[in-house]
């Protein structure tokens, strides 16, 4: 109970003192305009008390702290009154002083905390990164050199393999399709390129797939971090936006949003356990306890030309017919986006049919006797896609973050704007793209920037799930291991500085852009 009391007293002191400081400072700067003498006397007393406390605290001379503070306060007040006799500055300069003072009141606390908690440690890290592991000897840039030359952090040797990667060609096809559609529609409308969902969509997906092709051939800690940034930032923002938009105004909105938000409320320790249960693999002869492997093995048990596979093919065929209908409907209604969307969705369905008819789908490998047995995926051990399975954990968590902030922004779009657009005859879709999205673009930038930074600094997921083994190491976890496990402060600090420098340009760019948008 004592500790609880102590903690609560600490809270009350802190909040009380902050409030006192805030209102006291404002009161003081009000005085500067109206009552110059009182202002000088009060500020003199405050400065005096502070000096007195410093003198007593540093044991410059004997005597209790309160006495020193009081004596110095009186001296300071007297000095203030004496100074006021010399004359009163003009009203405008007093007003300016008061404005400056208010600025300090508003910004001061934040700047003080940031300086103590962030700026000084940053400077210290830069300094430590130039020293050896025990912070004893100057080694110059050797730590940075070690990061760059270590094959574990950057390994570009496999770059030629990109030309044998199927992802690479899939990406090229997608981009070509997107460009083709854009140009075809554009020519009809007299422009070289037309930005519409049918062209932007394939190009965006193509670029995304292309990044996968690149990141699976170039390996290393640094590459992993970039991969994380692209995938997690992109998907979390997109899915968060989708959830925020789709849930907006729907019956059961709060239930849906709460369930998507739930992962944020679960601690990282809990998340680690949860995803272990999702990814776990067991030997083929045992029932799978991991959800994903259970599905995978079940799919594998649907051998081609057996009952299960025929049922699957039948269902998929129905889906294909449905999609064909939708496509026809879209063409008839001149809804190109629908038509293209349905056609694109049909591609993986047709691929699934092919797999069920031909080579089979899912986890199944020939067993010792030749009979097929269950084949599992070692989600966390099979490089390089184990990185993606780790990213899924963070996407699962951070989509809730993106959703909440974007949802708040969507709710804040003035309803007059939306109503005006509706009155002008805009469809739901047009309202969304032309009114809502432009209004919340600054918020999307904020969310994306925050996620970039958060993802660059990710370490707990990697630490808990793979400990950086199997080619999943990221910079922040490497930094933690170097600095805290091995007590190699030089290398650890250098990694931190690298991480910081890598993120700052992206941040500064985004902030400048939002600022310009405001202006």
């Amino acid at each position: 109970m004592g500790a609880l009391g102590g903690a609560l007293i600490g809270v009350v002191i802190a909040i009380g003192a902050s409030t006192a400081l805030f209102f006291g400072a404002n009161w003081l700067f009000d005085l500067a305009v109206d009552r110059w003498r009182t202002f000088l006397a009060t500020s003199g007393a405050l400065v005096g008390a502070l000096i007195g406390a410093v003198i007593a605290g540093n044991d410059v001379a004997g005597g209790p702290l309160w006495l020193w503070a009081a004596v110095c306060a009186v001296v300071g007040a007297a000095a203030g009154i004496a100074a006021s006799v010399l004359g009163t500055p003009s009203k405008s300069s007093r007003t300016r002083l008061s404005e400056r003072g208010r600025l300090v009141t508003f910004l001061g606390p934040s700047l003080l905390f940031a300086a103590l908690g962030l700026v000084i440690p940053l400077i210290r890290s830069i300094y430590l990164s130039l020293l050896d592991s025990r912070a004893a000897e100057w080694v110059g840039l050797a730590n940075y050199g070690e990061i760059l030359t270590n094959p574990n952090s950057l390994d570009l040797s496999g770059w030629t393999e990109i030309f044998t990667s199927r992802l690479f060609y899939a990406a090229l096809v997608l981009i070509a399709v997107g460009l083709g559609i854009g140009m075809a529609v554009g020519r009809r409308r007299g422009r070289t390129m037309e930005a519409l969902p049918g062209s932007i969509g394939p190009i965006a997906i193509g670029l995304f797939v292309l990044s996968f092709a690149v990141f699976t051939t170039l390996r290393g800690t640094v590459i992993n971090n970039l991969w994380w940034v692209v995938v997690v930032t992109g998907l979390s923002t997109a899915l968060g936006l989708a959830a925020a938009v789709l849930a907006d105004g729907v019956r059961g909105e709060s239930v849906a949003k709460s369930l998507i938000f739930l992962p944020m409320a679960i601690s990282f320790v809990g998340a680690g356990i949860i995803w272990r249960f999702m990814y776990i693999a067991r030997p083929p002869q045992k029932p799978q306890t991991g959800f994903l492997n259970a599905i995978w093995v079940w799919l594998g048990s649907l051998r081609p030309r057996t009952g299960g596979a025929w049922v699957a093919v039948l269902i998929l065929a129905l889906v294909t017919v449905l999609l064909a209908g939708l496509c026809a409907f879209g063409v008839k209604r001149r809804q190109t986006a629908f038509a293209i969307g349905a056609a694109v969705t049909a591609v993986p369905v047709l691929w699934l049919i092919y797999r069920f008819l031909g080579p089979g789908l899912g986890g199944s490998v020939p067993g010792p006797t030749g009979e097929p047995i269950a084949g599992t995926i070692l989600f966390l051990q099979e490089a390089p896609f184990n990185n993606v399975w780790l990213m899924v954990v963070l996407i699962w968590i951070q989509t809730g973050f993106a959703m909440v902030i974007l949802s708040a922004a969507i709710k804040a779009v003035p309803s007059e704007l939306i109503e005006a657009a509706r009155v002008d005859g805009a469809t739901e879709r047009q309202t969304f793209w032309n009114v809502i999205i432009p209004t919340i673009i600054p918020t999307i930038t904020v969310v994306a920037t925050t996620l970039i930074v958060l993802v660059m600094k990710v370490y707990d997921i990697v630490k808990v799930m793979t400990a950086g083994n199997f080619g999943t190491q990221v910079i922040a976890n490497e930094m933690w291991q170097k600095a805290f496990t091995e007590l190699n402060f030089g290398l650890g600090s250098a990694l931190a500085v690298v991480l910081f420098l890598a993120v700052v340009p992206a941040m500064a760019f985004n902030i400048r852009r939002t600022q310009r948008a405001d202006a």
Partner: protein
Amino acid sequence: MSTATASRPGPASGAIERVDRTGKLIYGFLRRIPTWVLWLMVIVWSIPASSLFLNSFRTRDAQRNSGWWESFNEGGWTLANYSEVLGTEQTGGLARALVNSFAIAIPATVIPVAIAAMAAYAFAWIKFRGREWLFIVFVSLLALPNQVALLPLLQLYAGGAHWTIPGTEFTLTLFPDFDLAGSATAVWLTHTAFALPFAVFLLHNYISSLPGELFEAARIDGADHVTIFWRLVVPLSVPALAAFTIFQFLWTWNDYLVAITMIGSNGEAWPATIRIASLAGEFGLREHVLSAGAFVQAGVPLIVFFALQRFFVRGLLAGSVKS
């Protein structure tokens, strides 16, 4: 569409109507796709957590030998995981740890929200030289990996900051030794520093988009910055403040690293995260109880989320601007 059909008379109208009815069906189906996608997403998002929820009521052997979806056939139900988490005796037990969590998370949320709102207001609406530049530098600190600040801050809390003036014997105390290391105070002070760049970034984005004419009018009426901030900015920023409050509370409530670094071996000040994680034991022997621990831990943040969710309602902002 229906008007077009009605305006088209003729013998073929019956067939056209039929086609159109099919079209309407399909159209209605298409219109509902977004809702279905949403609920599909909700289901996908819920599977991992619900699997843990089911498993949290099962024994260790049951968790390992059969999937959670088979739990209704296989059994292995138990409340032992929860009773172990709730009944831990070490360093004051779970109740004490939860109290500590509150003692950390409440100030670590309230104080950053307050001072970041002030700073965001200053960056957005008080004109001063170097404002843009200072803002970029301040928010760029978000990119600093917090781990690098842990040791310097711990040293500050543990021994204060002292500087011996070169060439003299005299040591000046720059920051007194308040003996903060090992206390909840050290933890929320650290959280406050770490939270500020993001808080200012998020709140600045919102506060700077508030209608400037409103503040101009208020200034002409003679209101000073304090009044504008307190009477206009804070009420108008409630959704943003609520959003940040939710996240900051979650992060500080679920934080493990800052807490254990600043508190260290003083188990009596440990928040629930550390208390629960430690139950797993040195080699993860009792890791299965963490499934129960995760839900015990997640209860409070969910309540906070539900409580603050009502602030995300359309028209809140518009309404306040009008009046």
